[in-house]
């Protein structure tokens, strides 16, 4: 329950943004779709809210050299309108967060900074090897998303750091994200899986698989990906990969689902996701 007021700041430049975030008790405010409910529930008590949405560097998607740069405050609705194969696994997630109203406000940076184990863009960021650009008065650092999460809703970002952008390397291959929910929409992932496959002459030359909502953080499963490399991603190879995925997961029972069912769903969901990524990698349109 909010018990105190707060100051609202609206910086227009990155320089002002990181100065404002250095204030004690400052929180970045993006779409607010996580922050506002968390504050209302008394989970956080920000003294200063620093609105990140009006800083130009934090908006928009551009190609920069061999990477795609996504401004941290780009909304999921804006992202969802893109069609560029190279971001598929992230876009699959961005398109199913909440409802249309949620996506008009929610940002990619917010999803990453919230670091929920069930965050729908996070497995995609992992398999596409995204890198977070963090800035504070102490300088700039680039943290690969694979090193970003430290626990449920925890990450390496310091409170005074702004997430400015997320860079995704442009690579060959196809990627996908799928989740299991009880409702068809407006629900949080009970299990999520993302995959990226690079295929040359019908053979997998590189791969990544990540799982969500079945471990304390979204996480890559390198062992699963390795079993696919050098195969045609045939049923047997996929079955092997699924075993590694299950072995790497440690789901819990909660109000959304049971550990047992999460484990049961993980295999077929991984398989479906891999098949979708494979179809995309092979260039045919998805089913």
């Amino acid at each position, binding site marked *: 329950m909010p018990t105190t007021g707060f100051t609202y700041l609206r910086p227009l430049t990155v320089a002002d943004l990181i100065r404002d975030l250095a204030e004690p008790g400052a929180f970045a405010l993006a779409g607010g779709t996580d922050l506002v409910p968390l504050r209302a529930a008394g989970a956080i008590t920000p003294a200063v809210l620093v609105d990140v949405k009006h800083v130009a560097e934090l908006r928009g998607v551009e190609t920069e050299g061999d990477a795609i740069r996504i401004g941290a405050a780009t909304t999921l609705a804006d992202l969802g309108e893109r069609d560029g194969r190279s971001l598929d696994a992230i876009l699959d997630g961005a398109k199913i967060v909440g409802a249309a109203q949620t996506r008009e406000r929610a940002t990619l940076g917010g999803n990453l900074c919230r670091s929920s184990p069930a965050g729908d863009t996070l497995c995609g960021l992992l398999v596409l090897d995204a890198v977070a650009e963090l800035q504070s008065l102490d300088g700039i650092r680039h943290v690969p998303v694979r090193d970003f999460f430290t626990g449920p809703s925890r990450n390496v970002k310091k409170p005074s750091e702004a997430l400015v952008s997320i860079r995704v390397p442009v690579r060959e291959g196809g990627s996908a994200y799928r989740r299991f929910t*009880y409702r068809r*929409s407006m629900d949080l992932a009970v299990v999520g899986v993302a995959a990226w496959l690079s295929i040359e002459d019908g053979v997998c030359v590189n791969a990544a698989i990540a799982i969500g909502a079945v471990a304390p953080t979204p996480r890559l499963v390198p062992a699963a990906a390795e079993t696919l490399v050098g195969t045609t991603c045939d049923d047997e190879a996929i079955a092997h990969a699924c075993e590694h995925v299950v072995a790497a997961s440690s789901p819990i029972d909660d109000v959304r689902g049971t550990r047992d069912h999460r484990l049961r*769903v993980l295999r077929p969901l991984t398989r479906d996701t891999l098949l979708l990524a494979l179809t995309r990698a092979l260039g045919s349109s998805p089913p």
Partner: protein
Amino acid sequence: MSASVVGRAVSRVEGVAKVTGAARYAADTEVTGVTHAVLVKSTIARGRVTGIDTAKATAAPGVLGVFTHQNMPRLTVPGPQTMFLKGFLPVQDGEIRYSGQPVAIVVAGTLEQARYAATLVKPAYDAETPQVSLAANMDLAYLPEPHPMSGPPVYTRGDVAAGLESADVKVAAEYSTPLQHHNAMEPTAMVAAWDGDRLTVHASTQGVGDLQRSLMAAFGLPGESVRVVCPYLGGGFGGKALSWPEPILVAAVARQVRRPVKLVLTRADSYTASGHRAETRHSLQVGATRDGRLTAIDHTLTQQVSRTDELMFNNPGQTRVIYACPNVRTTQRAVRLDLPIANFTRSPEASGGHALESALDELAYALNMDPVELRLRNWSATNQETGHPHGSNHLRECYRRGAQRFGWARRDPRPGSMRDRDGLIGWGMATAAHASGGVPGAGADLVIKEDGTARIRSATQDVGTGTYTVMTQIGADVLGLPLRGVEFALGDSAFPRSVVAAASTTVPSVGEAVVRAATQGRDRLIALAVADSKSPLHGLDPKRVAARDGHLFDTERPSRRIAHREVMRRHGKPIEVVVSPAAFTPRRFSVGAYFAEVHVDPGIGRIRLRRVVGVFDPGRVINPKTARSQVIGGAIWCVGIALTEHTLVDPYLGRVLTPNLSGYLLPVNADVPDIEVDFIDRPDPSSPALGARGFGEVPSTGLTAAIGNAVYHATGVRVRDLPITPEKVIKS
């Protein structure tokens, strides 16, 4: 000449007010000087308050009062005749009966101040271990005393043991349904204001009259001193059908602080403040002859009651009434748990019907008989409980038409036999049925104004079902006025008394009163016209005169006519009619048939509802549009109950773990396919409301079983415990 407005798909007459925001809901009420209340709720489920530290809260900015059982004025607990069924008023003693029970009320100048101060109230408790699990306490089940609202604890006709003995085929199965909540869009809100000894309460309630009487009882006030107003409701579904303590508590503190007080419950509050559907266990035994005639049904229903009441709202009425079966027993048992009182939730008969209709599907498989055929063979023209004929009953036609629209003839009955590219397809069906009427009638008053238009009033409610619209249509039809010539007003306890808007009784009770009032008004208008020497109808036998399109006319020479407006202008003063409530409305059953198609992903057990066809017999359909909306809404509730809805309660602390729309999974639009709706639309000759029967709850029965039966058909897995989650489909 235009046809009657009755039977026409008229849009809601209050629709524009609702979509433009002109409609004022309880929380929108503006009262000068209003202050705000926030409840402090118990965090234990059983025990007592040993002390409450209110010092900090009292000293907090803007606080006008902090009320606990120690300083709250003593109030009389209203009796059940006011629909106050809780049996006690919170904040009157230190006893805790469930988690979330209000233990203090904070009143402050602004909502923010009240919310903040409420966090500073520190109760101390002596906590005992609560019992909240029905499964763990089934051995405590007992037969409560009979109560009219519960139905008979034990009902028997014929000889059930002999009936089962003589059966060629028997099915015995246990079904269960979890705790569920109403989840109306609008959480309950209220504003209480005193003017001397006169109290006005704006509240979200399905029964302004009952709530008024509960306030009269609590404060010992006469009827003319208490007024309850509620012109609009953001849904109720039974959650606002009882008289609850909050309006009484808010009125009490308003008197103490000498200011109007407003309380808007939070979404989380609505999981403990407005009742719920009690968790149930059903044990069913059904026997039949080889040719599918029922020989016996034995249905035992066990459900949770609270520590302070023993009303059982999940009622196996359908088992007693619908099917031709000589030997039937229903038994209703209760288990006391440390939970709030239950009440009717959407259709209270949904859980009993779910069990029966699921068991009949199992019986159809055991008999190797089509489930539609099984139901056709056991159709009954009489209400099997009373032995009296139904007013009318076109259930067979519902089955046939529904089966045809659905394409049921193409069904391969073998489980798992129908598939598509990525999964299993299942088709299931079930009967929908609900009592309607059987409650005291309603009163109404009517004024035909000098401009020839009319206003009709009754202290009923529009829960969203379309009461405003259909009463306007009925009034216009009888008076012979166009729709816009009639205004129907409701939601004010100062209007003629009506019953609570619940139990599918509004059309039979209020509709009957509107017909009576309008008939009297029209006859008085005709009497004026035939008596008036300057009227073209002068001297005619009144029986020859009818009313239509705003005119009275000679039925034998329709060109001889006079406008209502003209008759009234010459009369020079309004016609006023008051009709008092009929003693009773006939108890009837409205019925229908649901057909459903599901798709099941066998890998992850994901169930998608693909198609629903529902065909219903509500007697005459006053308004196909609002009736269809009622079916869509009822079907959506069934989708939730069948597949996702479940209130989780912490087994140790007794707290609701899912007190929000993120944790309590109501279906979203994407979960609900188009609902194909059809009506038989033939008047019930026994209906006093132009051939219409009550219909509100019928569509929220039956589809749960149709879905479960479809899941069985798809997978061969019979999930007897709702909701039918992917988990249960795969595990079995």
